[in-house]
C-alpha cells in the first residue's frame, strides 16, 4: 500500500483542525508516520526505546507553526538544540532519546564505537548515554556512513539533541 501526498495532507488537516487530538501514530508494514502538534520542533521515540528512530519518518504538522511567539513575546533567548544543524540531502541526525552524558566508547580504554567516515548498519551501537550509572545504547537506526560526531566524549547532551549525522546509503552520493 502506497501513501500519497494527499493522504499525508489529509492526516495533517485532521490533526490541525481537531480540538483535543495531540498526536497520530500510524504504522503498517515497514511504514510508520507520526504526526503531532506542540511547541517542540521535532521529537524522537520514547526514552525507553532501545533504538531511537532517525527523524526521517516523521512529518511535522503545520499546526506547530502556530506556536511561534507573537511580536509581543519577550526576546527569544533559548536556542533549540537542533538549531544550526544543516543536513545535506540523504543525511539524518541521530538524536538523544534522553538527557544524559554522551559516551563514544563502552569504557574509557575502549576504542570508540564509531569514527567519522565509518560505515554503520541500522543495528550498530554508535554511542552511549548515561543517566546516573544507567547506560543506554544508542543505535544508528539507519545504514550509512558517519559524517559528523557532534559532541565531545563525556559531555552533557539534552533531550532530542542531535548526536551524530549519518549519510544514508540509499541516497548517499558515494
Amino acid at each position: 500500500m502506497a501513501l500519497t501526498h494527499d493522504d499525508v495532507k489529509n492526516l495533517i488537516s485532521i490533526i490541525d483542525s481537531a480540538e483535543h487530538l495531540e498526536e497520530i501514530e500510524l504504522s503498517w508494514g515497514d511504514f510508520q508516520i507520526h504526526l503531532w502538534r506542540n511547541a517542540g520542533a521535532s521529537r524522537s521515540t520514547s526514552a525507553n526505546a532501545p533504538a531511537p528512530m532517525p527523524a526521517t519518518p516523521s512529518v511535522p504538522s503545520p499546526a506547530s507553526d502556530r506556536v511561534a511567539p507573537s511580536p509581543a513575546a519577550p526576546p527569544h533567548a533559548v536556542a533549540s538544540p537542533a538549531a544550526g544543524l544543516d543536513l545535506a540531502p540523504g543525511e539524518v541526525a541521530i538524536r538523544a532519546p534522553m538527557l544524559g552524558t554522551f559516551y563514544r566508547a563502552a569504557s574509557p580504554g575502549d576504542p570508540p564505537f564509531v569514527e567519522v567516515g565509518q560505515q554503520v548498519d541500522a543495528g550498530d551501537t554508535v554511542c552511549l548515554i548515561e543517566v546516573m550509572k544507567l547506560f543506554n545504547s544508542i543505535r544508528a537506526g539507519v545504514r550509512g556512513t558517519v559524517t559528523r560526531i557532534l559532541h565531545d566524549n563525556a559531555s552533557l547532551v539534552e533531550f532530542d539533541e542531535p548526536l551524530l549525522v549519518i549519510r544514508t546509503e540509499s541516497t548517499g552520493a558515494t
Partner: protein
Amino acid sequence: MPLPFKRVLVANRGEIAVRIVRACDALGLESVVAVSQADRDSLAARLATKSVCIGPSPSRESYLKPETLVTAAIGTGCQAVHPGYGFLSERAAFSRMCAENGLVFIGPSPEAIQSMGDKITAVQMAEQANVPRVPGSNKLESLEEAQREAMRIGYPVLFKASAGGGGRGMRLVEREADLVAAMKSAQSEAGAAFGDPTLYLEKYIRHARHIEIQILGDAHGNVVHLGERDCSVQRRYQKLIEESPSPVVDSGLRERLAGYAIALARRVDYQGAGTVEFVYDEDTREAYFLEMNTRIQVEHPVTEMVTGRDLVVEQIRIAAGKPLSFIQDEIALRGHAIECRINAEDPEHNFAPGPGHIRSWSTPVESHVRIDSHCFSGYFVPPYYDSLLAKVIVHGGDRREAIARMERALAQMEVTGVPTTLSFHRAVLAHADFRDGRVGTRWVEERFLDRRH
C-alpha cells in the same frame, strides 16, 4: 559572606520557575531551568542564565524523573536544586538523591519530608508535639464500639473508610438513631470500593475553614512563623483564593496555631519553608492539625505581601546554611493581602481546563498589585500540566481596601484565546458572604455555585 553555591537548577516550570529564577537573580546566583520539550520557550527559560531540555512534554517523562534532573544539574554545573511545588518537591527520595550526588536540595531533609508525607506518621508526630488532631476513633471492630465512640466524639460524626478516600465509604451521621443504617451502608460501600470494609469515625465539622501557618526553620535551630493564610475559598479541595490575615483569626488564636506549627517543626528538625495546615471549626473555635507541606506553597505571596519578606530568597539562604535573616520579633504583619488564582478553566462548564494559545494577555498595572505568572501574548498553554495561568496578589491597609484593589485589578485584567476563571473571581469578590468573611471550605460548592444554577 557569599553563598556556598553559584548556580541553581530549577526543577519546575510555570510561574514558580519564574519566581525561583528571580530569587536567584536577587541573590546574584545563576539559574538553569530544566524544561520539557513543551517548555523550551517558556518565560522561565528565557529569563534564566540557561535552560536544559530534560525530556518529552508529559511530566512523567521529564519533571518527574529524579535521575534525569540530578544528571542535568551536575552536567550544567549546578551545585543546588530548587524543586518548587508539586512534581518532585515532596519526594524524600529526590532530596536524598540530590544529597548523595553532592547537590544541595533547597528544602528540608529527606527524613522531614518522609515523616510529614506519610499521613499516619505526620499525625503521630503532631500528637507527640501536642498539636490537636480532628477528634476520631481508631479502626472500628463492632457496632457497639461505633456507638460508644460516636457518643464520645459527639454528633454529628463522619464514617470514613480506613482503606481509602475520595468520598467513598463516607457517611454523615447527624444523630444516634441513624448510626446503624449509616454504618452498614458505609461498610458495604467501602468493601466494594477498596476490598476492605473497615471504618473509623471522625468528628464532622460543619463550618470549617482552612487555615495554615507559614514557618521557616534554619540549620541553627531557629524556627519562626510568618502568620497565617486563610484558604477557605476552595473547590474540590483546590484552593482558589487565599488571604492573610484570616478574617476569623484573632491574635490569641494566631499565637496558639503558630505555637502548634513551631512545635511540630521543631519535632522534625525542620529546615526551610514549610506550612502547617489546620481545619478550624467556626462553631466551636477549635483548630485541628490536617497536614504539613514541606515545600514552598502556591499561595506564599500573600504572606510576603503582609510581612515584606522574600520566602524563596530565604529558602535558598537556609539551604546554604545561613541563619534566618530575621528573628520572630522582627516579623510584623502589616495590612491585608489577597491572592486570586487565575486558571485556564471555564467556570461556565464545570471548570473544564482549556489549554491553547493565549491571543492577548493584559494584566493590571497598579501599585499594590503583584502578578506572578509565566504567561504572555502568544504563549501556548500546554495541555500536559496544571492550568494555573497567573496569581493576582494585592495588598491593602485593611481587608476592605484589599478587596477593592483586587476588584480593580481583576476588572483591568483581560485574557483572550483561552478560557479563564476571571469571571468566577469577580463574582466571588462581589458576593456578600465573601465580603463579610463568612466563607467556609464548602461554600463555593454548596452555596456559591449551587445558587447560580
